[in-house]
């Protein structure tokens, strides 16, 4: 029997992106905008710059949403998630990961506590089904419901220093009262009780909003956001800028910096992994791995000679021996440098270590630099 090729998936805003003339690309089974036309202020570099200096909006509806609710929802989350969800007040969120028993990554996730016994996990597009099956399979002994709400929401990210200002025009919720990594609900574009989280994947301030996924509502909200954003020079942004923005901020991408063959210590995500929790999936393996000593570590590289390091390129030591590989590499439009993340042996991870990146057969000079490459400026009063 021949399996039918799964049809490419589209978000509710797909037609809007096409209408706007966005360049579309296939990403993990989804047809998504990679960049918008210059006539709309688009282009990867222009979009990236807009997010760093003003505001950009992204359709991120391809991401998934899993809801856990019930008397033992917290216990269920604590079992599958490496961070400590018991620290979350209602309305608070945290970055975390779901781990295999080996201490490697099923996915990274943002855990939101929406209510007393209600949690929302926002997960990656490419791992929607895998994560849902995983969460279901590993929480059945807990008294809570586990629901896949991924198709219920159109998720729009509004990111940049003016992001809050833009969104405030469209909602009655007092956004100044919502701290970073907290959420609120309010009336938005005439819709009631809409979830808005001060989260994002750009290393900037901003919000992500979750509106009903029907095409009409989604298009209306997207367009109202664009209109409200005109005074701030809002730019629609695609996956191209999304990737360069998160790379500058050293935010991991599943399948690159984190995967099922990489553990938490190697990825440098220690601070989101609460080993003081007596139990969670992957804990035992992580304890062993820590005792055995971590062999390789994720570092930031900056090219010192002409060339762009890209995903999968080999990293060499000064003598030309292969020591690792680039997990993500690209020009950094805001920093105006060529940067990369790469796994290298512990001994070669010190800032200032000179390495080479193999680009079309030639070793091109690079150096280990501190990360994140970019940190947003602190807002002054």
């Amino acid at each position: 029997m021949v399996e039918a090729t799964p049809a490419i998936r589209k978000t509710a805003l797909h037609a809007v992106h096409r209408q706007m003339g966005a360049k579309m690309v296939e990403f993990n089974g989804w047809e998504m905008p990679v960049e918008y036309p210059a006539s709309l202020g688009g282009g990867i570099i222009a979009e990236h710059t807009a997010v760093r200096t003003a505001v950009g909006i992204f359709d991120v509806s391809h991401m998934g949403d899993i809801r856990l609710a019930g008397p033992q929802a917290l216990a269920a989350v604590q079992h599958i998630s490496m961070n400590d969800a018991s620290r979350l007040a209602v309305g608070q969120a945290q970055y975390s990961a779901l781990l295999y028993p080996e201490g490697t990554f099923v996915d990274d996730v943002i855990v939101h506590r929406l209510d007393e016994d209600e949690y929302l996990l926002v997960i990656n597009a490419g791992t929607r089904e895998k994560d849902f099956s995983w969460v279901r399979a590993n929480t059945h002994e807990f008294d809570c419901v586990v629901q896949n709400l991924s198709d219920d929401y159109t998720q729009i990210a509004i990111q940049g220093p003016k992001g809050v200002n833009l969104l405030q025009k469209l909602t009655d919720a007092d956004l100044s009262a919502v701290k970073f990594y907290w959420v609120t609900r309010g009336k938005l574009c005439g819709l009631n009780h809409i979830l808005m989280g001060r989260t994002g994947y750009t290393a900037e301030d901003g919000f992500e909003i979750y509106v009903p996924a029907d095409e009409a509502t989604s298009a209306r909200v997207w367009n109202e956001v664009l209109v409200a954003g005109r005074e701030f020079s809002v730019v629609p942004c695609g996956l191209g800028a999304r990737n360069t923005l998160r790379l500058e901020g050293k935010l991991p991408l599943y399948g690159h910096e984190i995967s099922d063959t990489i553990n938490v210590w190697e990825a440098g995500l220690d601070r989101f992994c609460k080993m003081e929790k007596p139990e969670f999936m992957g804990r035992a393996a992580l304890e062993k791995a820590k005792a055995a000593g971590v062999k390789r570590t994720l570092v930031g590289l900056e090219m010192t000679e002409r060339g762009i390091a890209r995903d999968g390129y080999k990293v060499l030591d000064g003598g030309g021996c292969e020591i690792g590989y680039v997990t993500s590499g690209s020009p950094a439009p805001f920093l105006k440098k060529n940067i990369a993340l790469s796994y290298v042996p512990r001994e070669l991870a010190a800032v200032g270590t000179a390495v080479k990146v193999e680009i079309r057969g030639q070793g091109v000079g690079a150096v280990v630099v501190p990360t994140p490459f970019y940190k947003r400026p602190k807002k002054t009063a």
Partner: protein
Amino acid sequence: MAYPTDRKYTKEHEWIEVNGTTGTVGITDYAQQSLGDIVFVETPKVGAELTAGKTFGTVESVKAVSDLFAPASGTVTEINAELATSPEKVNENAHGSWMLKLTLKNPSELDRLLSAAEYEKFVAEEAGH
């Protein structure tokens, strides 16, 4: 768009403008549009030998690396140094941004290339996919 008729084109979206035995090479407007923001152009050194149809360098956008294919065979006599510091000029004016000049080895190779009208038709078909 109407492509300049003073030159010939390849199916890989390079153009070559010929003056006597000197060819000037660049990429087309269609190429720069498809690539998006160009951040890096890698060209061979002066004196390098190019073979028609073979790769001679790369042009990189933020997201991707694209090979450059030689429209004709010959020896490289000049490289546009401006592209090392301002690769975005290719986006601004692809037909006015040259990458290299070469002394043609075999001018009859040009007969195999597309005219402006033929290239325009080719691009319209490609874009339709």
